[in-house]
């Protein structure tokens, strides 16, 4: 929530502008410290935003994490957007998000430029091929981590298996699967409730106040 301060006066306008710059700069500094992205960023955000800047209370962090995790997009970027929005409205959200994205953007461009420059060297080519193996391992690890809180019962297990099967054999655009997953979830819960079945919709342990360092999402 924006804090509802009057932003009309010249003085407030100046304060607002300074806050926007602060938001940008804070997230600009947090951005590059998070190799692996996502949840790895959260403890650092917490330290900066709660302990140093006092922009948020400690008990708001759990809420922040669950909101950042359920919206589309990377958790780190989402967390920046939420904090920016709370502090300084839409402009705050925009400046925090630009701040958190800028450093990675520049680093990615740099890496890519180097890769294109040295692409034809056999050693670089070999290294990239080797990294393919590393990426496979990282993806499997990500799948395992995600499965731990998404596979809650038989229905969710079947959904995951069916998704893989459809992708492998039907060549359907993955977008449709996401949309149908969303609809199925709502439908299944409705039906199960009507039948009087108890459904556990979330794993409680995961949304604790201090999530373990998760690099993979």
């Amino acid at each position, binding site marked *: 929530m924006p804090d509802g301060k009057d932003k009309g006066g010249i003085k407030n306008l100046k304060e607002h502008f300074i806050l926007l710059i602060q938001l940008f700069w804070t997230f600009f500094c947090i951005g590059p410290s998070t190799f692996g992205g996502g949840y790895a960023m959260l403890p650092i955000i917490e330290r900066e935003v709660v302990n140093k800047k006092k922009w948020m209370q400690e008990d708001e962090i759990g809420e922040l994490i669950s*909101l950042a995790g359920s919206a589309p997009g*990377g958790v780190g970027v989402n967390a920046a957007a939420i904090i920016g929005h709370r502090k300084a409205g839409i402009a705050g959200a925009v400046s925090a998000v630009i701040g958190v994205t800028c450093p990675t953007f520049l680093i990615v461009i740099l890496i890519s430029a180097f890769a294109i420059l040295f692409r034809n060297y056999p050693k670089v080519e070999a290294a990239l091929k080797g990294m393919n193996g590393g990426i496979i391992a990282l993806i499997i690890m990500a799948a395992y981590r995600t499965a731990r809180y998404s*596979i809650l019962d038989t229905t969710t297990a079947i959904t995951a298996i069916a*998704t893989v099967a459809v992708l492998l054999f039907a060549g359907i655009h993955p977008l449709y699967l*996401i949309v149908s997953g969303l*609809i199925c979830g709502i439908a299944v819960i409705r039906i199960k409730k009507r039948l009087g079945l108890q459904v556990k919709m979330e794993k409680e342990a995961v949304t604790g106040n201090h999530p373990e360092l998760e690099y*993979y999402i």
Partner: protein
Amino acid sequence: MYWDLFMMFIRVGLVSFGGGYAVIPIIQHEVTEKGWLTSAEFQQTVALAGMAPGSIATNAATLVGYRTAGYIGAAVSTAGMILPSLVVIVVLSALFYRLNDNSWLKSSLYGLRPVTTGLIIYAAIHFGYPGENVGINWVWIATLLIGGVCLFLLFKYKLHPLLILIAAGAAGIILF
């Protein structure tokens, strides 16, 4: 071209629930269908995206944009990827106290999360699969071997992803 990239990543960004690795198949589907990158080029792109800090999905968007349409391509792709989550966040953030225990939200996530898991598993299979016309060869076996060792290191010693990628790259230089 820029507009196509932007709209494509708006679409991807809108459904990037669970962030990161789950959107890799979606981006791959889009770029190979449009003929912007080959499957092999895309896999290289993801390997590079993993080396930079930040979300692998956003990084992949930046790289795909850069390789297809230079700096401006990179900028519009990244913006497209981030814009939907920014809008959703602002809307959700404004409504959050009412949404917190919303059963609609929870039950849609109940169905969405296993699909996300399936997408990630598919991405792993796709990266480990050598392609239709390629038989079993040394590069493929060695890639799987590197993958297996990396996975072991991740599970057993919880090594940092960047270390894993560097080690895999070094192994590639030795093996290939």
